[in-house]
């Protein structure tokens, strides 16, 4: 058991440090998946197989796929090595770290260890049926509130990702790519000018096409 703990804890800490150190967001996403999977293995050693499975499916599966999808969609480049933020706070940080380290040393050497042993005997604590029973009896109200939270998240995500209202309705725009106005796309109605316009930003595209958004400029 101790060997497993040390193996997966080391893996988790190594992947976490690698995640913070990496400059490319895609590499840190992959390191984060490593952290999630080693934490799932630790959950198995803690006799919580259901939570381990959900950890792999929801975190390493769904959430990280979403994050990687957004990283690739936005075409994120590596961070440049700029000057460190918060440089003036370094002495305070060193002092606080020293205090924390002293506290840890005090606890390790002067506080008696808790002799409690883990639940290695057969118990149904981590099993799916007991978790389902707990969710639908004692914790029914938090469970229902969770469903309302998910509904709010769905509505919020759709509202945020909607494209309408930000640009003029006459423009079809992909940021950083080619920009057409509807007149150019609708070839049957407007046959005079069919050359696509390449721009670097949406604002430039608006300026080029002469469709500066009156609503947006009055709002901001």
């Amino acid at each position, binding site marked *: 058991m101790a060997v497993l703990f040390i193996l997966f804890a080391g893996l988790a800490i190594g992947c976490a440090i690698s995640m913070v150190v990496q400059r490319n967001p895609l590499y840190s996403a992959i390191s984060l998946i490593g952290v999630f999977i080693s934490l799932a293995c630790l959950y198995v050693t803690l006799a919580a197989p259901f939570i381990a499975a959900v950890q792999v499916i929801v975190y390493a599966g769904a959430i990280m796929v979403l994050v990687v999808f957004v990283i690739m*969609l936005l075409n*994120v480049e590596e961070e440049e090595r700029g000057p460190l933020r918060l440089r003036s706070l370094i002495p305070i940080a060193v002092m606080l770290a020293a205090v924390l380290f002293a506290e840890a040393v005090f606890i390790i050497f002067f506080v008696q260890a808790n002799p409690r042993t883990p639940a290695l005997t057969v118990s149904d604590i981590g099993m799916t049926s007991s*978790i389902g029973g707990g969710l639908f009896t004692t914790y029914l109200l938090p469970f229902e509130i969770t469903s309302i939270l*998910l509904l709010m998240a769905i509505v919020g*995500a759709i509202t945020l990702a909607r494209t309408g209202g930000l640009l003029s309705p006459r423009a079809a725009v992909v940021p950083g790519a080619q920009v057409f106005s509807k007149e150019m796309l609708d070839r049957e109605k407007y046959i005079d000018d069919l050359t696509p316009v390449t721009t670097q930003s949406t604002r430039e595209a608006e300026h080029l096409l002469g469709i500066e958004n009156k609503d947006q400029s009055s709002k901001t």
Partner: protein
Amino acid sequence: MVPQLSWYLALSAVLFTIGVVGVMLKRNVISMFMCIELMLNAVNLTFVAFSSFFRDLSGQLFVFIVMTVAAAEAAVGLGIIITVFRNRESLDVDDASSLRL
């Protein structure tokens, strides 16, 4: 030698601290977002460790709810990130210092 409860708590504290350091040092919004996910996972590890050592089911149910909150946060947070990127053409948090889109 059997792992003690304090080992899991120490691991959780280390992971949480790495997450906090990442949020402070990173400039990219998506990297900061992933560090927040790491912090949530460190807290989840504490819950599961306590639940297993004290033989109480509640900890694992809390983990379930924390995961739901994390999933909702991922959906809405990434939506906000995409909207901010569309308006500012940048993912640097220093470029997005004012709250309006």
